[in-house]
């Protein structure tokens, strides 16, 4: 099956997913894996879409225009059933300052850590913003090795901890 990655971004409002997916369905497209998040008040979505009867540009353009969304389409090499199960979780909480993500992920990359999911948020108050990030990923490295390399990313205002994920199969 041939897939394209469809990305849509714009001001959030109720009904966007319904309108976009209805247009794709009407055009004979099939959805694969998708991820939607609201970031800074913006609607963002990435969807694996397989080609339908009509060109995807023709299907999406009118909907995107009506909903004031920017969109982007890329052909991708992709397949379903490629899930990897994470074996480590990293949590970062601290005073918001530039460079936290680069520092922590740089340390993890040095140990061959493959990030599978990452989300981060700035919470707290305007006066005292707090940065929270959770990362789930896969690494062959030991817990001790990850702890050691993350110790370098720690500073007095930032808490970084790593814990193993034991996925329960039942």
């Amino acid at each position, binding site marked *: 099956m041939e897939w394209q990655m469809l990305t849509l971004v714009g001001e959030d409002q109720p009904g966007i997913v319904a309108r976009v997916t209805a247009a794709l369905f009407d055009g004979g497209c099939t959805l694969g894996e998708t991820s939607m998040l609201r970031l800074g008040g913006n609607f963002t979505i990435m969807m694996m879409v397989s080609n339908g009867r009509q060109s995807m540009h023709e299907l999406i353009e009118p909907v995107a225009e009506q909903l004031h969304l920017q969109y982007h389409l890329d052909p991708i090499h992709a397949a379903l*059933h490629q*899930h990897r*199960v*994470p074996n480590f979780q990293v949590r970062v909480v601290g005073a918001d300052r530039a460079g936290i993500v680069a520092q922590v992920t740089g340390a993890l990359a040095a140990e061959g850590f493959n990030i599978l*999911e990452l*989300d981060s948020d700035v919470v707290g108050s305007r006066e005292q913003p707090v940065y929270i990030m*959770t990362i789930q990923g896969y690494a062959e490295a030991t817990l001790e090795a990850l702890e050691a390399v993350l110790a370098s990313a720690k500073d007095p205002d930032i808490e970084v901890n790593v814990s*193993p*994920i*034991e*996925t*329960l*199969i*039942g």
Partner: protein
Amino acid sequence: MAILEILKLPDPRLKEVSEPVERFDDELHGFIADLEETRLHGPAAVGIAAPQVGRLQRLVIIDCSTTRKPVPNHGRLVLVNPEITDWEGFELGREGCLSVPDYTGNVIRAERIKLTAQDPRGEALQFEMEGYEARALQHEVDHLDGMLFVDRLVSRRTDLFQRKVYQKGGKPRRN
């Protein structure tokens, strides 16, 4: 001994409420041996429930003694007619299932539980469980009530503290 076929989503039998076991005989013991062989045959499962192989009876096996990092556990347990009587605390953890291939996701479970059950001969048992073993037992008991972990999935961003009460699975038991 035999390896039994595991029912996979969306098999409607996985959504049914199982009946209590009433006969503790050789036939039951033979089935338990097959169920255990089936659990050990697949990808490292710490538990299995009878309805996962199409036998709609209240029986589960769990074994949390072989995790990568050791956790508190009671070894391998064959639990007939298990009933959770007490729930305490909440914990988010990642689960997968023999009946839901190629998917894992986050589920909230009670951190500590108390339960009653019977052994394969019908003798009464009582346990207190915590953490990973409590999670395994809750996952398996859900199968007896026609619930799968995908019915309890929560988003990564779900706030644990918003949950006040742990929701029991399944439809009410028919008495």
